[in-house]
């Protein structure tokens, strides 16, 4: 046992504890009342501020699950066998030293996750840059938030998912959701849209008639991969129908003329032909947004996970800017962050091109500041590394890393073209996975490290509105597991780092994070755990100011009210044009495959598939398809189908859904093995964000029994 673990209290439970849900970025408040490990009671903390969905209610089931890992595993003669922490971590440290000595520091890579607390994300990035000295660190948030983040940076000079408090949405008369299905992905969120729904102001853009689209006054169902054209059409309609906010555009933006020059070529009738969305509906969308006293445009993965994701989000922001929504109280543009700490996870240095505080790793001033906090020379910090898919794609290649450490991620299921990713992982000399259960990625590992769950440790997260939350420990972890921080501490020390440089106590790490973030775009220096314990609602930036020790800044609930974050204070229109999907359907693969979520499962399903209540509700993969399309493929409702694309085939049970577009099939991506939706998805990357095109690829549908004749 390391010194860090011996300080842990011996009690199994610590009474009722106010904390937050372990799943999505909404981070609903919940109260945990442990009565032993197998019986932890969950209650919504403040039902008036949003309750819990089925995932949240069932969250505690995994704490006492028999699927839980409680001992390290080491591969031995082809199989994983239990090992002591000393053996497992010792083995990892020894192999890292050997590989680094042989091939240099970039031969060892790190893959993080948007589920890690701020403290873990921060320490993981520091571990990579300082203890390993590698530039090869990225995380699964690249597959999540990167397009929206890049577009927001380009438009506003700063990226915070919602640049306004979530509760501001409660006053909205009109909300356009582009590629968002919160009724399933973050259900309690809908409570904030009641007014808009009642006012007939909810507009949902989604190729599928999702439960969210069913609540909409106007559902726009574009051909997959044509969202950008649709946004241009609504923008065009707004201008043509005299709805442009000339004052706002003139006073607070630049670049309108160039953006309009592109959008002028996308009149609604032309857009209709490309998107299948009626010109009249485009005009109606523009009218609903423009006539509302309070209107918002919100984007999410459906419109962002494309090889043109950044430009597509840029086109939605153009629309919002044309109507004068951003930077004003009671209106705006925002993005619905996905993972629990998708926001904080992208700010504190586990991203290939970033340092803590949302600083750029290629910025000399940022390097000097962070190196100073870390007590190293700026020149010792590596530069930018590969983005997530490029990193996974390079593993085990002559120029790529030959060792990988994975925290809080399951890329065998969640990465695009997942057969390729599994193949690359198999080519590694060393794969280390830290997880709570034996995920599909952990099964492929050489060393598996069992770690704590959300209710067994303290830490902060930053939710979708940029508010810093304190998750609190409700019960002691089972014997034999450690926190990620303890793992990093132990490994760093074994790699020759001074112990104090990698603290295992989360509050100590946070104090260091405050200093590292100070003066950066995401400035947390004025946030303390004591303020969070006292219930303060702090949205970053929260600068400490000169009196670092007595922070008093009240945070920034609403960004951009006076000025946008570009040097000239203005927001920027983006002159973006429609290109279409990287892999359009053709005669061989005539259908569009789109991917998404179901209410009962989260991400790769590693957690939720092991909660019986959730597993029983949705036990396996299915493919939603229009009955006509199913019939043409010789399939009926309930039949076993193969969804076949250029990169692989997915097995799924047919669900005939009459509201589906006849040219589209939908696959949920939470399932493993031959049911992985990502066996067919396209790793074509956005040129700016490096986001893969998860949301559209070309496939055909056939009965599962028939072998494909290639």
């Amino acid at each position, binding site marked *: 046992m390391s010194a860090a673990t011996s300080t842990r209290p011996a009690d199994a439970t610590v009474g009722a504890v106010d904390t937050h849900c372990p799943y999505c970025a909404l981070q609903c408040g919940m109260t945990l009342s442990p009565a032993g490990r197998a019986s932890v009671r969950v209650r919504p903390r403040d039902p008036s501020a949003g309750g819990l969905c*089925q995932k949240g209610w069932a969250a505690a089931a995994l704490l006492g699950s028999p699927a839980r890992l409680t001992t390290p595993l080491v591969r031995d003669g082809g199989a994983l066998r239990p090992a002591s922490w000393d053996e497992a971590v010792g083995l990892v440290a020894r192999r890292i030293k050997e590989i680094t000595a042989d091939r240099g520091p970039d031969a060892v890579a790190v893959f993080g996750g948007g589920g890690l607390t701020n403290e873990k994300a921060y320490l993981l990035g520091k571990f990579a840059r300082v203890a390993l000295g590698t530039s090869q660190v990225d995380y699964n948030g690249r597959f999540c938030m990167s397009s929206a983040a890049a577009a927001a940076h380009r438009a506003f000079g700063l990226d915070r998912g919602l640049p306004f408090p979530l509760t501001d949405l409660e006053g909205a008369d009109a909300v356009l959701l582009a590629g968002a299905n919160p009724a399933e992905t973050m259900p*309690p969120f809908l409570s904030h849209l009641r007014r808009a729904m009642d006012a007939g102001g909810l507009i949902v853009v989604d190729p599928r008639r999702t439960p969210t689209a069913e609540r909409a006054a106007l559902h726009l169902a574009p051909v997959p991969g044509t969202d950008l054209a649709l946004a241009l059409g609504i923008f065009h309609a707004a201008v043509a129908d005299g709805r442009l906010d000339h004052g706002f555009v003139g006073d607070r933006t630049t670049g309108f003329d160039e953006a309009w020059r592109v959008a002028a070529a996308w009149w609604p009738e032309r857009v209709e032909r490309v998107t299948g969305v*009626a*010109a009249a509906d485009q005009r109606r969308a523009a009218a609903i947004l423009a006539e509302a006293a309070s209107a918002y445009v919100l984007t999410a993965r459906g419109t962002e996970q494309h090889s043109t994701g950044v430009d597509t989000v840029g086109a939605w922001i153009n629309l919002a800017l044309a109507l004068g929504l951003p930077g004003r109280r009671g209106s705006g543009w925002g993005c619905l962050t996905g993972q629990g700490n998708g926001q904080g996870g992208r700010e504190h240095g586990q991203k290939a091109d970033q340092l803590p505080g949302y600083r750029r790793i290629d910025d000399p001033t940022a390097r000097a500041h962070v190196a100073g906090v870390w007590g190293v020379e700026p020149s010792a910090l590596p530069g930018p590394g590969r983005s997530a898919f490029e990193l996974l794609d390079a593993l085990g290649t002559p120029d790529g890393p030959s060792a990988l450490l994975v925290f809080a991620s399951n890329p065998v299921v969640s990465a695009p073209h997942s057969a390729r990713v599994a193949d690359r992982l198999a080519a590694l000399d060393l794969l280390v996975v830290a997880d709570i259960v034996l995920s599909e990625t952990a099964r492929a590992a050489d060393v598996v490290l069992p770690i704590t769950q959300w209710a067994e440790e303290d830490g902060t997260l930053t939710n979708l509105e940029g508010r810093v939350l304190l998750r609190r420990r409700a019960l002691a972890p089972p014997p034999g597991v450690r926190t990620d921080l303890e793992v990093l501490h132990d490994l760093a020390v074994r790699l020759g780092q001074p112990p104090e440089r990698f603290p295992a106590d989360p509050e100590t790490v946070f104090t260091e994070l405050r200093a590292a973030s100070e003066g950066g775009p995401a400035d947390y220096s004025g946030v303390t755990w004591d303020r969070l314990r006292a219930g303060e609602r702090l949205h970053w930036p929260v600068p400490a100011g000169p009196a670092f020790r007595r922070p008093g800044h009240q945070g920034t609930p609403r960004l951009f009210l006076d000025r946008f974050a570009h040097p000239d204070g203005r927001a920027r229109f983006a002159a973006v044009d429609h290109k279409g999907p990287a892999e359009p359907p053709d005669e061989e693969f005539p259908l569009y495959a789109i991917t998404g979520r179901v209410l009962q499962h989260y991400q790769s399903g590693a957690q939720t598939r092991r909660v019986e209540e959730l597993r029983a509700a949705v036990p396996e993969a299915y493919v939603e398809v229009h009955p006509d399309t199913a019939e043409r493929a010789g399939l009926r409702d309930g039949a076993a189908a193969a969804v076949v694309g250029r990169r692989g085939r997915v097995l799924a049970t047919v669900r005939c859904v009459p509201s589906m577009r006849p040219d589209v099939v939908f696959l949920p991506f939470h399932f493993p093995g031959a049911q992985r939706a990502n066996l067919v998805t396209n790793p074509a990357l956005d040129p700016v964000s490096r986001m893969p095109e998860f949301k559209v690829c070309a496939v055909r549908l056939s009965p599962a029994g028939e072998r494909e004749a290639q």
Partner: protein
Amino acid sequence: MRTRVVIAGYGMAGARLAEEIRRRDPAGERVAIVAIGDEPHPPYNRVLLSNVLAGAMSAESVRLQEEGWAVAHGVEVRRGREVVSIDRDGRRVTLDDGTLIGYDVLVLATGARAWVPPVEGLTGDDGELAPGVATFRTLDDCAAIAAGARGGVRVAVLGGGLLGLEAARGLAARGNAVTVVHPRAHLMERQLDDGAGQVLAQVLRGLGVRVLLNSRAARYLPGDGLKLDDGRLVEADLVVVAAGVRPQTAQAWVAGLDVEGGVLVDDDLRTSDPFIHAIGDCARHPGTVPGLVQPAWEQAAALAALLTGSRSPYRGTKVVTRLKASGVDLAALGDVHAAPDDPRAEVLWLSEPSRGRYAKLVVRDERVAGAIALGVPDAAAAITQFYDRGLPVPPDRLALLLGRAMPYGEGAASDGGNPAGLSGTSVVCRCNAVSKDTLVAAWRSGARDLTALASATRATTGCGTCTDTVCGIARWLAQSEKAQAAGTAHAPS
């Protein structure tokens, strides 16, 4: 060695070609471009002129390129000039100012000109339009019409085709009293069948546009208006001529190129001279009809690919006609004239004149062969998708015609209005997957109010938007129980 491409005409087609070439050859390493445009303006988007006419857009906002685009992209533009002759042997063109320009490849993108019918008085002895008469083709035309239409004056529009109707609608929206004079029995006869034409006329009349069918103008009387050949007078202070266009092919014809209703081109947009191509309204390709922007832009892309070394043959464009007039939603495509008794086609049609709706679908070999959608915008969008991509149409044709090819599923109940009508398995609380059956069972087990039901089933504990429905179910169960106790009703199941 750079290819020197001379583009004769710098409008919708010519300017697009320059952009498409620069998209593929940004630095101009492979292709040098000289463009010759006869209008004094920078290139603009003709499709949007009806918006300009209606006063919704400025002339500036319909420009196709930023000021300085040509310079920044190495495109030499001769503005206000036109090609007057082509020397095919010497591979050079002569401009109207006498300048000679040599080419490796010449592209004709000279477009079309408004056609003025031979009506007495419309033109003067010099062939110029008489005062009070304007065509509707260019930005200058728009300015002339706008100037002449000030103060709500009376306007006669000569021609009830696409352009004439867009002009008429735009002018009516500006407060002018507009009369459309059309020589045929129904409007837009090229794109519509008789039934649709009649409903369209009725819709336009409802928007304040007077429509005269089977009416021929005989004489223009300045100050009075148009005298028709049956003796009637259409009072008008301004006459807008929208009687069709003629491709500009004079120089091509003089140079000996094959011309037949346009300069004939093949799939490489090549004319009968291998060094001369033609695109847009002046060109004639067997796979499309002239006069629309979509074919011109697709031709520009195909030709740009060829000129930059990656051949991408143009196979034609499926044409969908959309009338752009506010308050009217009209799409027409393919063979619209098939009769309901056509033995080789399946023809569905539906006419609802009282609401301005007309829909027709012609199906051959399980594919959309033609359609008209007036006043049914979502049908127009869906049918166009099937037509463009040649997808088999759904077995339920009527649903497609009504715009309901994608029928709406039943959502979670959002009001507590009629809980009895909900099926037992229908999901009431989606956040927690709670069905009506589950709520009924919980109620029977003693959960008699919202709090108890929420605690027993988790219903309402997510987004809370099902609260009304859950309360409604509780009330309904209570009432049923009371009624049952009184022996007057059966229990809910």
